[in-house]
């Protein structure tokens, strides 16, 4: 079999759709232009691709049958949730099939004593927390798109969010996954316990960006809601001071639930969107949130205040009440989209740097922004060094996208140079594929290709995402390992 089979031939497509219509009623197979166009993009509109069709499954069996059919016809497919990816991860495969999981949105099981919930992948992130709120529980990962994005998408991209500083990413909150692999095999990875034995296959599936198939059921770990929140806004006259404050807070021994920084541009955008009321004239604001039991939070408050004062903040203000706290967070979480008010187009970057080098990274981004003459807004999860520079451009100006991409590339390379990563939580998707090879060595990349080959030799599942196109000689190594070919090693 060839490594990258072409999409099914025209004749095959007719036969493929005939088979699809045995699984789905006509209204759940979308094929005309007006139906397909809205599925062309996700949250990153500079990438577009037209699928040959979109199906809307309502049961697990339908998803399984669809994947098996795709396997039989060698039809590449992507499972799509709410299409909020900021790395192009949910962009369809040209002429491939989109399996839109939005109607697979049932919470199948919920155990308040065991602190678990079993959900279908189309369930919206925030709905999980709403469902269990009556028992004072919640689901911790809180990506900014929480009211929109699905658990399936969170699993595929190992989503984070503001509070992953203290609680970790999606992978720290998923106990088990039932999935259909690209060849149609059903697997149960992990289980319903915090303790698992053997290989961490759940961990392998999470963050695989859809390359290993489609999740059917996800067992989530729930947490008791913190008794008390203490949310502080500190204003600084420079972005670097705010960056340094983050390292100082962590060095003091505190572990806040979240630490976020917004620069002037992003504060302006968020204020225009929801009237969040961030400090006027500040070059940067640092949002720090302590959370936990009342005793714990109250004991930590004086230390936090003294560190923040020492860091050179010129206004320090605590959230007055729950409504004020909500406002601060809604503003922060709307910031990406709100930047649409400042610029028709932008690229959101997602690089990570070590916390201690935040100030350095921010100063360099500012310098690059000046050099390119492109505005860059900064809003990011400072606590874990996860930067989100928003590189603004007007796509109608000739060459503007290219220039913005160049600047983005420089920022990514800066992150790698400082000892960080090209992605913190948005994933590699389409957008950062070409930088993966700069972060990992050839052996690592080759290993990733072999892993993909082991699970999906035809590359049907979300083909073309995450892994760089294999052009370098070392990357062309596919199929059996050389030692395997020589009969030195074997596999089942």
């Amino acid at each position, binding site marked *: 079999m060839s490594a990258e089979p072409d999409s099914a031939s025209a004749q095959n497509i007719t036969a493929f759709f005939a088979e699809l219509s045995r699984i789905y009623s006509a209204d759940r197979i979308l094929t005309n232009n007006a139906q397909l166009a809205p599925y062309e993009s996700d949250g990153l509109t500079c990438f577009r691709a037209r699928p040959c069709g979109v199906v809307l499954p309502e049961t697990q069996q339908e998803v399984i049958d669809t994947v098996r059919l795709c396997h039989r016809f060698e039809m590449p497919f992507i499972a799509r949730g709410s299409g909020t990816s900021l790395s192009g991860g949910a962009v369809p495969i040209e002429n491939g099939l989109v399996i839109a999981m939005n109607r697979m949105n049932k919470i199948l099981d919920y155990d308040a004593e065991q602190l678990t919930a079993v959900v279908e992948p189309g369930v919206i992130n925030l709905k999980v927390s709403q469902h269990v709120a009556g028992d004072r529980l919640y689901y911790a990962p809180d990506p900014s798109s929480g009211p929109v994005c699905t658990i399936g998408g969170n699993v595929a991209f190992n989503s984070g969010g503001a509070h992953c500083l203290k609680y970790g990413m999606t992978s720290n909150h998923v106990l088990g996954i039932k999935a259909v692999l690209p060849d149609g095999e059903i697997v149960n990875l992990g289980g319903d316990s915090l303790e698992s034995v053997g290989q961490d296959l759940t961990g392998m599936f999470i963050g695989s960006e859809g390359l290993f198939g489609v999740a059917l059921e996800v067992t989530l770990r729930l947490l008791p809601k913190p008794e008390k929140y203490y949310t502080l806004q500190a204003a600084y006259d420079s972005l670097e001071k705010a960056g340094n404050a983050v390292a100082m807070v962590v060095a003091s021994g505190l572990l806040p639930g979240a630490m976020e920084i917004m620069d002037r541009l992003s504060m302006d955008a968020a204020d225009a969107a929801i009237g969040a009321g961030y400090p006027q004239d500040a070059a940067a604001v640092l949002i720090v949130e302590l959370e936990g039991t009342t005793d714990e939070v109250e004991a930590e408050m004086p230390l936090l205040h003294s560190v923040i004062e020492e860091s050179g903040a010129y206004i320090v203000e605590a959230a007055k009440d729950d409504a004020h706290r909500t406002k601060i967070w809604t503003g922060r979480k709307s910031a990406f*989209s709100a930047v649409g008010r400042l610029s028709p187009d932008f690229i959101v970057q997602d690089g990570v740097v070590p916390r201690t080098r935040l100030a350095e990274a921010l100063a360099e981004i500012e310098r690059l922004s000046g050099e390119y003459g492109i505005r860059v807004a900064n809003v990011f999860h400072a606590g874990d060094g996860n930067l989100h520079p928003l590189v603004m451009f007007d796509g109608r100006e000739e060459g503007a996208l290219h220039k913005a991409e160049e600047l983005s590339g420089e920022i990514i390379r800066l992150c790698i140079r400082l000892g960080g990563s090209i992605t913190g939580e948005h994933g590699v998707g389409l957008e950062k594929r070409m930088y993966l090879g700069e972060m990992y060595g050839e052996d690592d990349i080759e290993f990733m290709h072999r892993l993909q080959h082991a699970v999906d030799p035809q590359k049907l599942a979300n083909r073309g995402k995450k892994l760089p196109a294999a052009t370098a000689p070392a990357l062309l190594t596919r199929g059996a390992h050389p030692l395997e070919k020589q009969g030195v090693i074997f596999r089942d």
Partner: protein
Amino acid sequence: MQHDIPVDQIGPLGLPMAEAVQKCVHCGFCLPACPTYQVHGEEMDSPRGRIFLMKEVLEGNVALDEAEPYVDKCLGCVGCETACPSGVPYGELITAFRATSETKRDRSAIDKTLRRFILETLPYPGRFRMAAKLGGVGRIFRKAMPGRLGDMLDLLPAKLPAAQPLPEVFPAEGERKGRVALLAGCAQQVLAPDINFATLRVLAKNGIETVIPKQQSCCGALAAHTGAADQAKQFAKQNLKAFPTDVDAILTNAAGCGSGMHEYELWLRGEPEQAAAEEFVKRVCDVSVFLAKLGIVAPPELQTKTRLAYHDACHLAHAQKVKSQPRELLASIGNLELVEIPNGDMCCGSAGTYNIEQPETAAELGNQKARAVISTEPDVVATGNIGCMTQIETHLSNVVFGKRIPVLHTMQILDRAYRGEPLA
């Protein structure tokens, strides 16, 4: 979002449409706020999807007739505008799109007739009264009526209240503190004339004199939101002439009309009256906004404790951003417990003529709203829009059997409180 909309070839509405598309970043924050996306779960039935589709049609990449079913399914509730962080003026976009595409549409004969009938009847109180009366008779033949005509009949009340002509001036009680003009509303005058009289009495009680210009016409919202741009322009121009300029405000008491009148500048883009419309719009506000700003005389305490669920009409809450004022007014009534309806930002499915054009989606949303209302166990429901009142009343009676929960206008509630009458 990038686009290649040929702005110059479209006319005066090309620019506002292109600007709206450009502001959309496709983030999807509108999805949970969209009633049709919640019902259908398809990207084409979401605001983001429709923006993309309208862009594609304007660019010439997708045929209008393929996109129509999805554009038509939009209620125009603009819940997405409230949810949108990037500030996309979605309402302006869809109104402009409907206006520019209507002339290119190929509608079926039945569709054309029904549409013409609605546009020639509803905006004219006299004609609508006549039609509604005939409809009452027509109910006998309900079973023989084709789908949508039958659905229309179901929304008509069994018996119409008697016609009550409005005075030209309604004087203030006691010292006059201000003077306003009132838009009487078309369907409202026929279906629930008491709303206008309650409004006039409440204003008078608070020292406000109201003039009701005789030459006023329908606000034009119905026409504009169904793409009948010429008719909408005509109505807007007539109202620009009919309403006096020497009043403190031009008041509306139907959310749909209020939001329509706020769009006059858009409808008259490129017309000689555009500047006048811009000035006019600044003076238009909902009666609740005017009264909350004025500060009202506290009504006497209710004799029995009453639980009231306030329903946000989309064209007040989302289109005019009016949420707190009606609640403030209602909260000033003693012995009244104000409760919030869960998921209250979601449309009830009324949306002008939507329940005639998209009866299935409208019914689904109506039932959802009725269930949400009932979950608050109210004695009475209040809202600021006649369309919502009719829709919620119809669906409450579908969901609850036996007990009737009255649905009243915020002004009717205040009026009853002032007069010492029970609410439920």
